Every structure is written in C-alpha cells, then in structure tokens.
C-alpha cells in the first residue's frame, strides 16, 4: 500500500487544482465552508456534516464544484 501521506498530498493538490473556486465562493455558508473542508481533507462524510446535508445531496453540490473524490 502506498504511503498515505504521499497519496493524500497528491489528492489534495488535485482537488485544489480541479475545484471551481468561483462556484465555491458563490455558495452560502455553511456550504462554502463545507466545500473547503472537502478540498482540504477529501472527507465527504465530514464535509456533508459541516454542510448539514445528507451525503448524497452534498455530493451533488460537490460535483458542481468540480471537486474530485480520489480513491
């Protein structure tokens, strides 16, 4: 198994690069904060909790924000 730190560093860079920051900045709180949590951590469950939304509903916003989930 690859180093988690290495994997997560590369995944975070990819999320930061791919994200539609204009879309993210247009979102109301706490959605905006939750999307930033997702970019930094890759943790969809945690970000959905911050957003106060069901995971699948938050994931639809995640797709619009062009934030990839890296597996």
């Amino acid at each position: 198994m690859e180093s988690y730190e290495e994997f997560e560093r590369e995944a975070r860079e990819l999320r930061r690069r791919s994200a539609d920051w204009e879309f993210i900045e247009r979102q109301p709180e706490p959605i905006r904060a939750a999307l930033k949590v997702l970019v930094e951590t890759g943790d969809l469950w945690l970000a959905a909790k911050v957003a106060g939304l069901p995971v699948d509903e938050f994931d639809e916003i995640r797709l619009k924000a062009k934030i990839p989930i890296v597996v």
Partner: protein
Amino acid sequence: MSAAVADTCFLVHWLRFRDRERLFEVFDSVAVPAMVLEEMGARGRAMLAPWLASRRAFLIPRINEYEVEALRLVEFSRSQRLPTLDPPEAYCLAVARRRGYAVLTDNKAPKYLVRALSEYASVRVLDSLDVLALIYGSTLIRAVRAYEEDAGLIFSRSRLRAYGVEL
C-alpha cells in the same frame, strides 16, 4: 459469495454507476447500517429502495455494542495518527468483524486500521476499484472509465497501475 457492509460514501457513488447491479456478482447481499441510511437523502434512498425491496440489501439496526466498538476504533485511529476514521466506517468495521462481512468503503482509513489492529486483520476492506477489479477482471479499464464518469471520482494512477491499468 458472501455479504458485505457498505458505508455511505461507497453507496452514494456506487448507486450512480451504470452497472451497479453487477455488485451482486461478487456479494450475495449488502448490509446497510441504519446510520448509513439516515445519512442518505431522497435520491440515494430512492436508488437503494429496489435493493432493499428485492432483499439483496438489508438494514442493520443501531446496536449499542457496535456503537461502543466504533467509538473505540475512532479513538484508536486518532491515538495512532492513522487516517481519520469516520463513525459510520468504524461502525461498518465493528459489524464486519462480528458478522464476518467484508467492508465496502471508498475511504482509506479502514484499510489502514485493519493493518494496524491485529483483531481486525481478518476483516476484508474493499473500495470501489477493488470491487470493479473483482467484477471485470481483464476488462477493468473500460469499467474504470465508466465508473469515474458516472460517480465523479478519480482513481489514483498508482493504484490503477497496481491493477495493470494505464489510462
């Protein structure tokens, strides 16, 4: 074949996959903890409903013993500075160990935890790429492309190479 217990993020993505029904070529049934169902919205529940109706998926109630064990796992992962383990994943691990199920999750933390905690060493943790590889074998590359497109996620290129896939 056997049963697997799925966490929220795995289900949310897998249920978008055009060939989602093929999951049952690998597992007879999929256990869905009540806490996982509660975290899904209308769309996710609607997509899961046919699996529940056909009894290929079944609900696992909240059981205090598993919840206490899940908290222990969350605390262990924090104390060992492992990748962050979320409560639903921890609950899935607790269920899987007691019931002999596999765990389906797209998060890294459960894979690291079962390597770090000896009593969990026998728990099989699979992410969507592992499941696709089991289903598709030599035609994995087409499935990977379809899954990335449908689910809006990206597989690590190094993990794909480990499966012999170069995109």
